[in-house]
């Protein structure tokens, strides 16, 4: 089993394998996002409480999911790297923070634009908002540690250990709205008793989320290919 995995863990081969997957991701993501945008902006009904502003949800919630999912991905890849020591895992994990930080920024900005009409302020220091801000700083820290160890052998290890330590923040974010009574509304889609959201809003949200997720994968895969090529450049230029 491990030996089979090892065959695909060869960076050059991996780079070739993800080539078609990457393109499929891009060409499904773009139409899905377009459909999601059109339904979400013009055809979905307004909320009975929040009115038209609920349309911000389609981009806000989808990017929030992506930013959390990205961290889980980094965490898993780091754990795999520490167990099996394939450098490919950490190479993949290192490419995620930069993409994820943009999605976290989108989440925070759209969230505050959603908060102004519904709560009356752009920003409150409540549990979920603060913990999401901390997530942003943890991503920044991960990028920073990658840069600080650029030509050091221990960089990979430091990166993966830091991402494992930072994973403590993820459950805090996920459950912050359930544990504390805060301004932010509790989870309404992913919860034990099934979604509490109107089906007409759920459909565009799901389409949008799938589209953005595929786009995220496209960006990650492209970055991974670049990183593999970068390694190759380093190898070639240090050869003689």
């Amino acid at each position, binding site marked *: 089993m491990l030996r089979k995995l090892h065959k695909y863990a060869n960076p050059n081969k991996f780079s070739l394998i993800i080539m078609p997957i990457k393109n499929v991701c891009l060409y499904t993501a773009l139409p899905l996002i377009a459909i999601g945008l059109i339904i979400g902006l013009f055809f979905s009904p307004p909320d009975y409480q929040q009115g038209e502003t609920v349309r911000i949800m389609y981009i806000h919630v989808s990017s929030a999911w992506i930013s959390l999912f990205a961290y889980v991905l980094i965490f898993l890849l780091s754990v795999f790297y520490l167990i099996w020591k394939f450098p490919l895992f950490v190479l993949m994990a290192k490419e995620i923070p930069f993409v994820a930080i943009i999605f976290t920024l989108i989440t925070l900005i759209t969230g505050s634009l959603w908060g102004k009409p519904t709560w009356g302020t752009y920003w409150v220091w409540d549990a979920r908002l603060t913990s999401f801000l901390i997530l942003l*700083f943890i991503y920044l820290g991960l990028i920073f540690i990658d840069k600080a160890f650029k030509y050091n*052998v*221990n960089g990979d290890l430091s990166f993966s*250990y830091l991402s494992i330590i930072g994973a403590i923040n993820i459950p805090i974010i996920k459950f912050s709205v359930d544990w504390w009574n805060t301004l932010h509304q509790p989870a309404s889609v992913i919860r034990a008793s099934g979604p509490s959201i109107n089906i007409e809003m759920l459909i565009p949200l799901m389409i949008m989320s799938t589209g953005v997720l595929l786009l995220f994968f496209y960006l990650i895969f492209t970055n991974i290919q670049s990183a593999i090529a970068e390694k190759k450049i380093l190898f070639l230029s240090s050869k003689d």
Partner: protein
Amino acid sequence: MNNLFYIILKKDFKDNLLSNKAWFTISFFLLCLIIFPLAFGSSQYLELNVSISAIWISTLFANLIALDHMYKEDYNDGTLLYYIVNKVPLVIVVYAKCLSHWLFSGLPIILIAPLCSYIFSGYSENNLNLFISLILATPIFTLIGSPIAALMLGSSLRGAALTFITLPFYLPIIIFGVMGTNINNSNINAEFYLLLAILSIGIIFFPMITVKILKSIIN
């Protein structure tokens, strides 16, 4: 086993005293505190909220500053290498280091903070809360800092990067700590239980991960 812990703790304690870094943290804490009345420009008492935040902010920064030389000297002069080759259990070393670090960067602050709060605000009813929440929070600062200090050992820009990377991990602790100090908070036990939960998980988890990091990063 107990004996070894005691020996290493004693040596670390001595190192701290001899290398003059022992008084650094508490002096930094006091200096940082003095800034607040000056910056608020008031010749009278500070407001209670302000004095509490001043104490928490100073604690945070004093701990951040002290973190840098937790493992630095032992790494640079090779003592850690000798510990590992000679199979001295690193768990004991890490626990001893955390304890001695806390004795110099946590304990003095805990003892001195209620007094500072009284001097600054002229108000002493929240002192017990401040005392308890500091007792719970400062060991967590040390414990969270220890793996991060260990994994920045090989990096060239250690000091600045360490401060930047550690700060986000300290933020939840300071949130709960300030909430626990607030005397108007009716549900104050909840924060203490939460800090206690983090402390009791952290006291196992963080030293373990520090040992792993030190072992893999040493060469």
